[in-house]
């Protein structure tokens, strides 16, 4: 059991959780509001940036990732990176078709 008991279990305080919830709700409001304005291509970018921010808040605090060890943080990052690569590399095909 080489990696056992590196740290005490972190307890997320109710106050922090509440703050995160408020932030998440505010971000949701912003997303809806921004979607009413036509920014062209930026709309998708803004919506996704806000969604990523929300996701980060959930992962870091609600899912305690902020308090996990480096390895756990790394593999979570790797997982999402891989998904991004799958989507991104598919576009090497889609974006250049019919050229």
């Amino acid at each position, binding site marked *: *059991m*080489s*990696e*056992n008991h590196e740290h005490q279990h972190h307890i997320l305080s109710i106050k922090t959780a509440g703050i995160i919830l408020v932030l998440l709700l505010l971000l949701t409001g912003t997303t809806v509001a921004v979607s009413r304005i036509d920014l062209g291509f930026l709309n998708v970018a803004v919506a996704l940036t806000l969604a990523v921010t929300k996701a980060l808040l959930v992962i870091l605090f609600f899912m305690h990732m902020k308090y996990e060890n480096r390895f756990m943080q790394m593999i979570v990052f790797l*997982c999402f990176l*891989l998904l991004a*690569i*799958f989507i991104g*590399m*598919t576009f*090497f*095909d*889609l*974006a*250049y*078709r*019919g*050229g």
Partner: protein
Amino acid sequence: MSNNSLSFWEDSGSSRSGIMAWLTTTDHKRIGLMYMYIILAMFIAGLCLGLAIRLELIAPGRTIMDAQTYNTVFTLHGVIMIFIVVIPSIPAAIGNLVLPIQLGAEDVAFPRLNLFSWYLYVGGTLLALVSLFTGGGAPDTGWTFYVPFSEFTTTNVSVAVIAVFILGFSSILTGLNFITTIHRLRAPGMTWTKIPLFTWSLYATGWIQVLATPVLGITVLLIFAERVLGVGLFDPNKGGDPILYQHLFWIYSHPAVYIMILPAMGVVSDIIPVFARKPIFGYKAIAFSSLMIAFAGSLVWAHHMFTSGMSDTAVLIFSLLTFVVAIPSAIKVFNWTATLYKGSISVEPPLLYALGFIFLFSVGGLTGLILGSAGTDVHVHDTYFVVSHFHYVIFGGTGFGMFAAAHFWLPKYYGRMYNKKIAKIAFYILFVGFNLLYFPLFIIGLEGMPRRYYDYLPQYQEGHVISTVGSWILAVGIIIMLVNLWRGFTKGEKVGRNPWGAATLEWATPTPPPLLNFDEEPDASRKPYDFRGITPDE
């Protein structure tokens, strides 16, 4: 042979007895054996289908079956061999037997989940068999289930893809279990650089299983949705793009090739040093290259699609990346060869099969370069060249790796030794039959014989005839090998703790191992390939 505790055969750890003690066991060794028996049965089924394909192709026109039967036979051969035999063969069967003991652990991290994976595997296999006899008949799409054909065909594709989904889930859970086991259950002293290379390879494999298999899961679910709901995501008449299906399919199915081959590489890395009595050459390079292969292998999927109508830019990128994956494989081959240098080599059956692996895998890997190179791939894509290439890699590679593993480890678990002389004879027959079977296919592939052809132009017949004769020799070799193993494990001579004089932990425990693997706390601080002072205990 000192055996003061009961072996896992006698002590099931539960109050149940007989078959129920097996079906409810959470012991990794018993689960491993249960995997092995089903894999063996399905391997023989797949083999018979393969022989039927070869027999059909011995002459142009109808030989033993009609075209529709032929199409279902090659589909079943593919689905059974890939999803039911090869993918679980080394990880689930041999991995379950060996991995926890190599780490000095009592069991895997989640023993009950391990049993659950086995049930999923059995369920998926049964469902795959059900798909043969229900609905519109056995699937005829090829194991790739390419759309739109798989959407339109009236055969029972819907049930078959659900079976694949379940089998995929079983594979995911096994990978998840192994990764956690390696992280959490290493014996004190077993640092990351002391983990045997077989376990290292399963670690890399586990990551591919966890991260790539879900994509296959959603892909086959989408086929199901397409067929049942008619959504049209891949149907051009409804706005779908069939090439996107191919992307999704290969995002899993190319890494799946590494699920199949990496564990076999691990087997070879563990066997060669033992019979050369010398540390593996470049331990870190081999361990690291497993991870490299796992990662880089996830980025090359579209090299299966150079003629699919994909953009030329994508062809450029994926061709380039494909060549990058060749490097870690090459490193491994060179390191294995170098391990033999200045060793003290004794050619026992496991080493023979391992060397067979190196040669056949090299042929498969090197012909893979033709397929990775864009210009040449266009000519040989979807021809018998590809068929031959992947049989060299999957059968010559993983298959021979599995045979090597069986000859190396199984005596430990059955407590008895097979006849070594017959094992060697079987190898030579297998090796000759194998090359006779698959090498001519390279030639007719280069001449332009497309794959999945029920009938063919007369100029290709010569190659097909040689190949079919080879298939018979191969079958004879396999029968001799299996019978010899079976006779050995039931009637052979009893073996001691360490018949090969190996240094990893599974050889430090009694033969067969007890329920919780060890009588006393094993010494895990020793390097896995340090053979000084270790003598074989036959």
